[in-house]
């Protein structure tokens, strides 16, 4: 079956001869040649653009989410886990970004419930390219590409940062999985080829490389 959806960096991944798997209607680079564990000792980058996303904005957005039993991060520029995996990030007082995990249904249910919108709640189409950066040297990559001091955040702090990385606007959150620093990054899909190419180049200088989704310590 032909997938309808395609990652904005599909062409770059194809050159790496990945093991493709169809997930959520998109060809996903599940595995890539190379020692992923070694990459995680340096910096590894994986494409997670297949995960479904949506956004909400408007003065009634927070109330609407609570009414639909969706966790709402307490403060602006904070994020929270969704019950079945995935994240919800609060981008402002009245704007939210939601990404499901592979098994999640929150995005789908928001779409079904919200439709074209409700009073003071406006749906936002999100087609962001999604990436994961992981590895013990990941901060060395970050300090070459972004002027936010991620290391200043506490390990348990769930801060959603909207900033620029290599000249591209991104949403970034930080987590630590299996004691490996891990960052999730989202950017406009039309910048994704440039963004991934640039980050991968720096990751390679640091001894890292691209890895498949299944090698992520998430």
């Amino acid at each position, binding site marked *: 079956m032909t*997938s309808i959806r*395609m990652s904005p960096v599909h062409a770059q991944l194809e050159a790496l001869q990945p093991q493709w798997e169809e997930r959520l209607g998109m060809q996903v680079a599940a595995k890539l040649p190379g020692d992923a564990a070694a990459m995680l000792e340096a910096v590894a980058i994986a494409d997670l653009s297949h995960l479904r996303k949506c956004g909400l904005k408007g003065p009634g957005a927070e109330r609407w989410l609570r009414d639909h039993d969706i966790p709402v991060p307490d403060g602006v520029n904070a994020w929270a886990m969704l019950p079945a995996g995935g994240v919800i990030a609060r981008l402002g007082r009245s704007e939210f970004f939601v990404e499901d995990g592979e098994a999640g249904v929150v995005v789908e249910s928001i779409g079904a419930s919200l439709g074209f919108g409700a009073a003071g709640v406006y749906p936002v*189409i999100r087609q962001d390219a999604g990436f994961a950066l992981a590895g013990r040297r990941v901060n060395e990559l970050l300090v*070459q590409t972004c002027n936010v001091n991620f290391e200043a955040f506490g390990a348990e702090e769930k801060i959603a940062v909207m900033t620029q990385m290599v000249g591209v606007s991104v949403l970034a959150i930080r987590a630590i999985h299996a004691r490996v620093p891990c960052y999730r990054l989202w950017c406009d899909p039309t910048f994704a080829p440039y963004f991934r190419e640039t980050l991968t180049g720096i990751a390679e200088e640091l001894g890292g490389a691209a890895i498949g989704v299944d090698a992520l310590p998430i």
Partner: protein
Amino acid sequence: MSARLPPVPGEWIDRSVDIEFEFEGRPFRGFAGDTVTSALIAGGAGTIGRSFKYHRPRGVLSMANHDINAMMQDGARMNLRGDVVPLRKGMRLNAVNTLGGLEADRGRLLDGLSAFLPVGFYYKAFHSPKGLFPFWERMFRRMTGLGRLEFSSPRLRTPKRYDFCDVLVIGAGPSGLAAALAAADAGAKVCIVDENARVGGSLTYQRDAGNLIPGMLDVLIARIVAHARVSVRAATCAAGYFADHWVPLIEDRRMTKMRARAIVVATGVAEQPAVFRNNDLPGVMLVSAAQRLVHRYAVKPMESAVVLTANDEGYAAALDLHRGGIRVTAVLDLRRDISATEAAKQLGAAGVPIRCGYGIYEAREAKGRVGAAVAGPLLDSGDLDVARQETIGCEGILMGVGYAPAAALLYQSGAKMRFDGSVQQFVPDQLPAGVFAAGRVNGVYDIDDRLRDGARAGTAAAAFLGFASTAHPAVPRAQSSPSHPYPIFDHPKAKNFVDFDEDLQLKDFIHAAQEGFDNIELLKRYTTVGMGPSQGKHSNMNAIRILAKLLRKSPGEVGSTTSRPFFHPVPMSHLAGRGFHPYRQTPLHSRHEKAGAVFMQAGIWLRPEYYAFPNKSKQDAVREEASTVRSSVGMIDVGTLGKMEISGPDAAAFLERLYTGKFGNMKIGMTRYALMVDEAGVIIDDGVVARLGEDRFYFTTTTTGSANVYREMTRLNVLWQMQVGIVNATGAYAAINIAGPRSREVLGTITQLDLSANAFPYLGVREGCVADAAARVMRVGFVGELGYEIHVAADAACHLWDALMKSGQAHGIRPFGVEAQRLLRLEKAHIIIGQDTDGLTTPVEAAMGWAVKMDKPYFVGQRSLKIIGKKPAKSQLVGFMLEAGDADAAPKECHLVIRDGGIAGRVTSIAFSPALGRHVGLAFVAPDMAADGSRFFIRVDGGRMVQARVVPTPFYDPDGARQKAEAA
């Protein structure tokens, strides 16, 4: 002859590692840890460079990173500063700025012509006769500039990185080290940087005649290195200060953008030269330069020296050097009344003559370097009593007459500085929040005071950040001035240099002031003082003193010039570094590549200009693409268009206020052209608005305008407080325009939407599935044919493209690029904002009054358009056509419309229309030239005039029958 001393305590060299190198073709040998200059001096070199303007022989001046006459070329690496660049094996060095080598430099003839080459001579000469200007230009280009640029050298991708700390301490001398320790002890994360190869600052060479507490530096360094909250970066120059404590740190192969929460500036001072005749001879140097050579590199720069001083530190230095093996033949003190220090007494006991109230009138040359100092007593006027001059034999003259604060970073931070006469120095008066100063830059000189001042500043910085700390009292400034107020002496034969970078003499300043350049900023620009590679570190203070004396003002009243980052030259490779140049690709980029697209940049987008075929020219490819659209069907990726969604109860009202047209009366399922003007009534954007629901609209903007339009909409809604949600969905949607008489058939096979003319009329919009993807389909006709613009989520774009290509195969579908689109739209006379308009074009001038509904209550720019409407238009956009025979010399875009020898307009678009067999175009012309049938002339390349005729537009299918396609 080797000038290398036996091992000196604390020396920076590693005598176990020999390094061989070449200078001017001669072999030299040094040690690891040497700088280029220290190794050269150790190897017996005296002259190590030539001056910029007069090509005078020059030696060591400062050894403090501003010996600009010791700049070297090593292969592709140019303008290496010999006084600080570490020696490396295999270096093949040459002095820059010579014509034929250092010794045989033909440029030295200029020294004899210096009387004819005063400052600013080029302002007054060479502008006539005009014909000779190219000759002079070539000559000056050959003569000026430092170093040789190797175009073949590989690009260095010098990494740039960010870093963060609580307190950045700049300068790792005693006060900086004390500041770092105090701040770190209070709990702050501290980074301390120093431009020298090792930390310690003046403690590494100014030994205060042995009076320092033994091991003081070692103790400080040990504490710093052991401190968990302190990171140390030597050989790192903090080259500028930007807002919010953002400081670029320059290392040999890296630039770090340090974001500190507070900074302590402990940058110390730069020792200043005295000004007397021949003060640039090899062998004349700053006292601190000699001390650096002796204590850091174990190099004795001369056998004997006269020390010229004006402070107590000069005696300590003289004694120190005397003990280090340099025979001090005299100490000359510019001060008359001093109380003898312990060092002075010891010098006297050692038989060194001491002359108080004495200065140096000139240095005499012998064998290419200093042979003697001509000294004399100072008169009450401050001049030297030439009649009582005496000549003192020596190989060197060491100048220790005062200092200038290294305060560039403080100035850049916005600190208010004032001139403190008691220390003869500019000192910080008011510091910005989070900026602190310590040590000699703060006017504090005694070593114990500097340590206390550093601790005070470090503690204050930590307290500023909220770390618990105890306030330290202010530390008093120096009791006696370490700097002489005017160590500058005139001489009838001049060559008394103030600025060694630019060969500026005392008389140059006097002449500049006489010519009216008597403001410090004007003086700087006229004389170029401080504009050379050392950026005034050894010249600005003396320039201020000279101007102050000429104007009978104090240095404080004269003030200093503006300090801007970078205050120290930074290699271009660091600034270029790894470049981040974002570009955007539509989701269909891979499909375009497969189809042979030749890409062009549209803003930061990459778009297919056309699709290349073997053995086919670009022109043929473009015309075939256009022909396919006219005759069958083509498709173009228009995903770069801005795409916005606006919804909510006030959505229609918002659009009415934003655009010039009416949208409240639009039917659901229809689209309408939208024109946007700014408050001045100037066209800034256009697009198509589609009404998807009662309170739900989707609309497009120009490719380059989307971000601005979204930003402006957001801003306006803050003002207007309307109930709308605005979404910039530019990247989230892909868009394909399928156009041509067969487009309905092609699209019809992959969608259940009813595409019949009645069900889906021209300018309609429908939502439904296309190739199993949720889509918005708009019947618009930018290229003048039956066409559909299909918008789908970005991740479904390739699927849609493939489906359309497959469906259109039977009709010979092919993609077309931007060039064909431009041609097709020009045949319809559809304007492109930014190409057919400029920053002054109003809808009236662009013949788009039909898109402006002045009877609305309000829209942005309406008020201006009312005013503009009452005035006669200055130009008019018209369509024109060339006569058939003018195809070979067709005008180009931006060629001028000429009437009576003057400019009457310009061409904005022009192309050959295969459909019409003529060149057609759009042009701005004077309103009285705009009538149909009027003829005007366009001046083309080479000056030839081509006649054009104003014709009605659209040129092609004027009734729009093809795009409406109602019969289908």
